[in-house]
């Protein structure tokens, strides 16, 4: 029920993001999502690729500091307040969201929300009980 995401530690200096994206691009790896959490000195690049396992292998081999994280993926209608409703559910249950991002695929009328939470099992159970549609990696 969970979505796998790759996270890469990256020093904040020119050329690093190119190195990462090029390493994957030249091997024909396609990104589904990509976001960067940045601080003054470093960033964490988080992304989902069409082939996460291969992307992981490639980056390991190239010497990147990379890990795999499991996220909760939720699909909601692409309309106002849809995100707020999901967040409200989590808040009511006193569950902490570590980070979250969302994206909309063109020619779909749904939005996808990806989040990392403290207690994944509990969150999955809660969302299922509330009838929220969860994503698996394949749906992406």
């Amino acid at each position, binding site marked *: 029920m969970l979505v796998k995401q790759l996270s890469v*530690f*990256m020093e904040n200096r020119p050329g*690093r993001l190119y190195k990462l994206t090029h390493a994957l691009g030249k091997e024909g790896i396609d990104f589904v999502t990509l976001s960067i*959490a940045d601080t003054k000195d470093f960033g*964490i690049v988080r992304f989902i690729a069409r082939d996460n396992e291969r992307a992981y292998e490639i980056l390991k081999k190239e*010497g*990147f*500091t990379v*890990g795999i*994280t499991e996220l909760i993926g939720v699909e909601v209608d692409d309309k106002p307040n849809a995100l707020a409703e999901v967040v409200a559910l989590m808040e009511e249950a006193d569950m902490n969201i570590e980070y979250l991002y969302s994206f909309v695929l063109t020619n779909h009328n749904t939005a996808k929300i990806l989040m990392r939470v403290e207690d994944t099992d509990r969150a999955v159970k809660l969302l299922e009980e509330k009838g929220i549609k969860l994503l698996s990696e394949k749906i992406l």
Partner: protein
Amino acid sequence: MAKSKLKDYIYQPEYECLSRSEMENLQSERLKKTVKYVYEHCKPYRAKMDEFKIKPSDIRSVSDLSKLPFTVKHDLRAAYPFGFYSADQKDIVEVHASSGTTGKLTVVGYTQNDIDIWSEVAARSLAMAGVTKDSLVHVAYGYGLFTGGLGAHYGAQKIGASTVPASAGNTIRQLTLLRDFGATHLCCTPSYAIFLGTEIEKAGMNIDDFSLVGGAFGAEPWTYQMREELERLLHIDALDIYGLSEISGPGVAMECMQKCGSHVQEDHFIPEIIDPETLEPLPFGSEGELVFTTITKTGQPLIRYRTRDLCTLTAGKCACGRTTVKMSKVKGRSDDMLIIRGVNVFPSQIEAAIMNVAGVSPHYMIYVDRINNLDVMEIDIELAGNLAPDMVSDIESIKKKVETEVNSYIGLSAKIKLCESGSIQRSEGKAVRVIDRRN
């Protein structure tokens, strides 16, 4: 580390297990002979002793050692290249030299007698790491003017082990040879050994396909935490070997399997600890500068040579059975000491601090700058290669822990910068850990 796969044994019990009085008698005889010999054969020594108004006859036992003047690296450089030989040029069979960071090379000439002594002490050392005739010793120290390569080589051959003179460099080839030849022992610098360990997986190899059981690592100071890392990576017992080309290459002292201090081969090299400021000899257990007097060498014997290495000496019988004096791990060279905002800082202290934190690797670089007349230290450290970095807060907390540890070890704050795995320059010889940009 699981149960050790190697057996420490005493190569020459007749010298390594003497009582203190037997050792002192032997040292006294050899010292008297050496002082007389250098006075008669080495011009700079005769001049020095005349200046201090000391005659060889004034030296009757080891207790008279402190009457003799010191020798420093500068004396050797001033006599560049061969002015410090006591032996005739025709009797010198091998020449080594160490490069300083500044100035001329320090040259050391060895007679066949000296090479034999060196081989013997290196053999005693490797025996502590369990090297026998059945072992295969892979030497990845550089072969050349640097004594590391040939020293380990002579020791392994003296024992009769198969010796592989791989020399330094070409990591993939090193790993392939280690695995395919079934090396049981590795000799190189500890930083390079760790580098080899971390490259195994990247090279698509598996440590389980290696036959390594132990190794002798030296030529740069390293910490106990680094040993743990090395032992974990290579599945070996990692022991510290000490030497310096001026006295003899690796094998002047070596750690036994008790792993708490290195046995000095004091029937050949008398160790002393002095206060580097007052130059007064200090008793056992005090920290100070290590000084050696060679008492069996003939090519270029040295009297009270100041190593600049800081450590302590302890006497007493070791659990391994040896009775030779032990030296602690070298804390640093007095030349390596950084004075930052008036505080003495050794790179080894910083390394020890870093290694207490999970999530970082032993690869680091210390930068010292002077900004607005204030010394500023930045430490760049690589994250551990196996870290799965997803949360900014996890990385920030690693950084915070390093800051706290460094501060508690050296009493100064340093700016910590976490770097990508593999981004800090690797060295295949002695690791460069400090870049001082204040001058």
